[in-house]
């Protein structure tokens, strides 16, 4: 020991482990335009596919003539459903237990549905040839409004299901009915509602929108007919599942299918499902023996692959006069579009919508969901949220505000009064979940104090008076949202995708020189996995994060995992990473003891080394131990230093947060300006605060977009009228509010490092904060519940209805 010997703090800091604001290592390539995306991959002889799509929302296909397209120079093939029938790929199974047309089989069910797939020598020829495919349609009556789907005379959309009274999730009661799903005690809830001293009932809609990642969905399939091997590059949030599905559908052994998800430019749920473009590229390559690439354009992405939300939630709450909630009853009409292609764990037709009791201690609750078909694109993906959790959080957070108004209570006070208390955890919810941990009152109190909530309410009151006197044309809204998420799916006892349990995995290999390669079953789409998994390992194994390489997305090298969505990477694969690292550390301890010539129990872990208990100058660093693992291990021990862990979580994790939005609305234009937005997140142990803040900024920006105008809208003919970025609202930095982030830390008791996941919290929490702010601004004028999205024109219409322009 001398003055140059690093202190313990210096040694810990050098690791850049958990808690460090480590810069994102992937940004070195992303900020220089050096990411490798699917469309960057070019193979010799590669062909391009493009779709002929339906201009109609509902029509019978009378005839398809592809002769002119086939006659065009450079066109190799034109696939239709008839061509896919011999290989039984004209329809494909969906994740939700339904089936979906790959190419239109006899009829089309939504605008821009895939009708034919043209394969040509280049992308331009493929597009030109699409115009030469002649399709004769006979228009049919269109069903757009989900509330009319179950009318006796509603047009029958799914003729393929005619006579099937049982679906994947039980009874179907109508030709456009998909499922009915119920949770909770109906009789007790009905009784609570009818005996409630104060009750509210409101139909709260969460409109249809779209994740709209910057990079659209794409795939490149390359069949090597000599080896019988298929390589598939694609924008896959869950590459291993894609490989399993591709094997089941094609009959090619899973070992001979190589699925590679390279860099992905955002997913947000859009890239979980399997799309006709993937299937057609694979079929094209198998048939032609050449690589076939399919790249979706922006309009195709918005109109054909994977909408989100479209939940219409009739919500009732009963409470005492003092504001203690006594019951919650929710009926959801779920518009699934033409096929039920929701990306939920297979047993959960409405995802985890039964988190709808939120952060509150409801003694009884009942949830019922009816899924229906309409002439709209399929999807129902979890747009930066765990399965249907955003819808549920919006429902309860909006409903609590409506109840507060009816009671004449402050919305923050009503929440405080009904919170599940810290001592109630683990908490059994009325709809069947066991919340792992939480301290809600502390979080909300911190938020209210930071933003000076009471003073804002005073200011609002003064502004309301000034508005009534005609001194201002602005009204002020304060939106409070206190969300509880359920993420990290999930325990394999109740969560699977097509029968594969929703565990996840990590494989860590320590090289002789002490550097590490680690591979996971997840797949980053921008979440900074290469940065943060390395931090977990750095802390667990005492090796500098910069010496740890993280690799994901190649099914040949990575252990099997269920992928990245539903904020599951940290709760599941992050746990696997810690557990695999601990296996390595256990072996390292034995090697250290062997090198130090003491017993295994006489050494102890110290940041980056094992030292002899009571003799801190006698130690072996992990780097030294790594070297020894390859040349000097105890007798009888296998050489090498690596481990794999498949982690089946015992429970979900339940991140939560307090969000407060302060907004000023110009009643003459309906334009809403966000003055402040405060986001407090509790995601348990924080691995990288900077990455967390980035996640919160991104998720809040999406939430802002959704609440304030981002929607997928159809006209009465079923034409999608928001199919380009001219109409679909994607805010720029100029429109986006400034975000104030904050946190509390309540670790998950069942997670190896106590982390809960944060990627989706801000989307879940911010939407109700924005919507509640708009509603709160108008509340003093008795506007009633105002539906999202709150674009300027709709907000202006509220003001117009209230006579504010007279």
């Amino acid at each position: 020991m001398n003055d140059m010997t690093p202190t313990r703090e210096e040694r810990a800091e050098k690791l850049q482990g958990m808690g460090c604001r480590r810069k994102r290592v992937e940004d070195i390539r992303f900020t220089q335009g050096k990411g490798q995306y699917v469309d960057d991959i070019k193979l010799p002889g590669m062909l391009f596919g493009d779709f002929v799509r339906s201009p109609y929302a509902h029509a019978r296909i009378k005839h398809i003539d592809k002769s002119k397209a086939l006659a065009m120079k450079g066109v190799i093939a034109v696939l239709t459903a008839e061509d896919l029938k011999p290989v039984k790929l004209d329809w494909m199974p969906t994740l939700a237990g339904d089936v979906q047309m790959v190419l239109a089989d006899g009829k089309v069910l939504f605008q821009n549905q895939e009708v034919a797939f043209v394969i040509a020598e280049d992308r331009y020829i493929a597009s030109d040839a699409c115009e030469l495919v002649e399709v004769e349609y006979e228009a049919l009556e269109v069903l757009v409004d989900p509330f009319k789907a179950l009318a006796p005379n509603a047009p029958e959309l799914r003729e393929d299901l005619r006579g099937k009274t049982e679906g994947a999730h039980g009874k179907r009661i109508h030709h456009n009915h998909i499922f009915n799903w119920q949770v909770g005690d109906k009789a007790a809830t009905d009784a609570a509602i009818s005996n409630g001293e104060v009750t509210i009932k409101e139909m709260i809609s969460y409109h249809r929108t779209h994740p709209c990642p910057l990079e659209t969905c794409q795939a490149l399939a390359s069949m090597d007919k000599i080896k019988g091997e298929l390589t598939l590059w694609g924008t896959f949030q869950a590459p291993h599942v894609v490989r399993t599905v591709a094997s089941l559908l094609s009959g090619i052994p899973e070992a001979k299918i190589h699925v590679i998800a390279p860099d992905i430019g955002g997913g947000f749920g859009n890239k979980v499902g399997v799309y006709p473009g993937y299937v057609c590229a694979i079929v094209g390559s198998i048939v032609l023996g050449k690589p076939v690439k399919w790249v979706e354009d922006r309009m195709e992405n918005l109109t054909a692959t994977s909408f989100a939300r479209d939940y219409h939630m009739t919500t009732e709450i009963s409470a005492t006069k003092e504001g203690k909630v006594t019951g919650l009853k929710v009926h959801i009409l779920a518009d699934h579009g033409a096929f039920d292609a929701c990306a939920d764990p297979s047993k959960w037709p409405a995802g985890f919508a039964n988190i709808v009791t939120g952060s509150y201690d409801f003694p009884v609750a009942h949830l019922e969901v009816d899924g229906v078909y309409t002439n709209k694109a399929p999807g129902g993906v979890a747009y930066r949220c765990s399965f249907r959790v955003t819808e549920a959080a919006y429902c309860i957070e909006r409903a609590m505000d409506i109840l507060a108004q009816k009671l004449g209570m402050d919305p923050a006070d009503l929440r405080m009064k009904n919170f599940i208390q810290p001592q109630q955890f683990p908490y059994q919810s009325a709809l069947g979940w066991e919340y792992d941990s939480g301290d809600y009152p502390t979080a909300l109190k911190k938020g209210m104090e930071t933003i000076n909530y009471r003073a804002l309410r005073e200011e609002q009151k003064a502004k309301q008076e000034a508005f009534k006197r005609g001194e201002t044309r602005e009204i002020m809204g304060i939106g409070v949202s206190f969300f509880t998420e359920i993420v990290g799916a999930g325990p394999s006892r109740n969560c699977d995708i097509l029968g594969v349990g929703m565990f996840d995995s990590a494989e860590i290999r320590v090289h002789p020189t002490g550097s590490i390669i680690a591979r996971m079953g997840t797949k980053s789409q921008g979440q900074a996995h290469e940065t943060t998994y390395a931090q977990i390992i750095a802390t667990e194994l005492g090796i500098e994060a910069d010496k740890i390489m993280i690799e994901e997305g190649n099914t040949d090298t990575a252990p099997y995992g269920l992928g990245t969505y539903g904020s599951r990477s940290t709760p599941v694969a992050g746990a696997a990473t810690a557990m695999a690292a601990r296996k390595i550390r256990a072996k390292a301890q034995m090697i250290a003891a062997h090198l130090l010539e003491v017993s295994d129990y006489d050494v102890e872990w110290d940041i980056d080394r094992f030292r002899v208990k009571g003799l801190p100058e006698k130690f072996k660093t992990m780097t030294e131990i790594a070297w020894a693992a390859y040349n000097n291990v105890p007798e009888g021990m296998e050489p090498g230093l690596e481990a794999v862990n498949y982690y089946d979580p015992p429970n979900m994790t339940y991140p939560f947060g307090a969000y407060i939005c302060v907004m000023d609305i110009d009643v003459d234009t309906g334009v809403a300006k966000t003055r402040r937005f405060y986001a407090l997140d509790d995601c348990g142990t924080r691995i990288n605060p900077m990455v967390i803040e980035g996640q919160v900024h991104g998720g809040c920006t999406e939430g802002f977009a959704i609440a304030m105008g981002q929607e997928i809208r159809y006209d009465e003919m079923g034409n999608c009228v928001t199919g380009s970025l001219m109409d679909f609202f994607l805010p720029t930095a100029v429109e986006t509010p400034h975000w104030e982030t904050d946190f509390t830390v309540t670790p998950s008791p069942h997670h190896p490092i106590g982390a809960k996941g944060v990627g989706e919290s801000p989307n879940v929490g911010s939407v109700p904060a924005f919507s509640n702010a708009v509603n709160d601004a108008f509340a003093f004028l008795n506007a009633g519940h105002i539906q999202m999205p709150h674009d300027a024109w709709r907000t202006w219409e509220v003001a117009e209805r209230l006579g504010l322009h007279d």
Partner: protein
Amino acid sequence: MIPGRFDYYRPSSAQEAVALLAKLGEDARPLAGGHSLIPVMKTRLAAPEHLIDLGGIADLRGVKVEGDTVVIGAMTTQHDLLTSKVIAEHLPIIPETSALIADPQIRYLGTLGGNVANGDPGNDMPALMMCLDATFTVLGAGGERTIKAREFYLGTYYTALETGEIVTSIRIKAMSKATGYAYEKLKRKVGDYATAAAAVVLSVSGGKCTSAAIGLTNVAETPLLAEDAAAALVGSSLDKVAIDKAVAAAEAITNPAHDARGTPQYRTKMAGVMLRRAIARAMTRAHG
């Protein structure tokens, strides 16, 4: 989002450009900044077989003063307009408007000529040109002629330009230093077309409005010159009664489409609100 096949030409003079347009006929289209034409080509709503890029014609770009008139080359970009000292001095309402068009990257390419000649009522410059009583110089195979902005717009994407003609320059009388002006635009986000927008120039003398002109953007099939609205202001002291009358007259001539920006009723009312705000701002700038 992949355009059909086309041939590309880059002439170096306006004469050469119109000769090409005459030779290639209906299937040829001139290309200015491209921010309107290329997106519709990518969606295949337009499929010209020949694109005549005017970007190589140096004579079409730049700003000069001829007597009391400012002459702006058709290929002068929005960025040029934002940074031109001549424009800032003589026509300050133009950079105020340019700054509300799209974003900096687009303004480096988007041109005044393209903006006015395309005939899209969503473009901001046409209503402003009507308000300023600009004159367009156009060139065709048959020679040069001039068309008043106020007579130029006949319908959506339908203008007084004959096939084969291009706009070569825009002539606008310089504004007096005493003139009040404002362009007010309501939009959802950077890069969006106006929900509604209003251009106002007015003069005041002895507390009375002596002249006024009003243009409205994106609230009808064409840009609008709101003559009755302007007339309601002239002779008044720009009091509430006169402004109410002007707003009502402006709202009476709108016929906006229902799109993601709002209902026809909303967009009409926003034309009124933008006009009201533009008048208020113009009043603070007017001297005399």
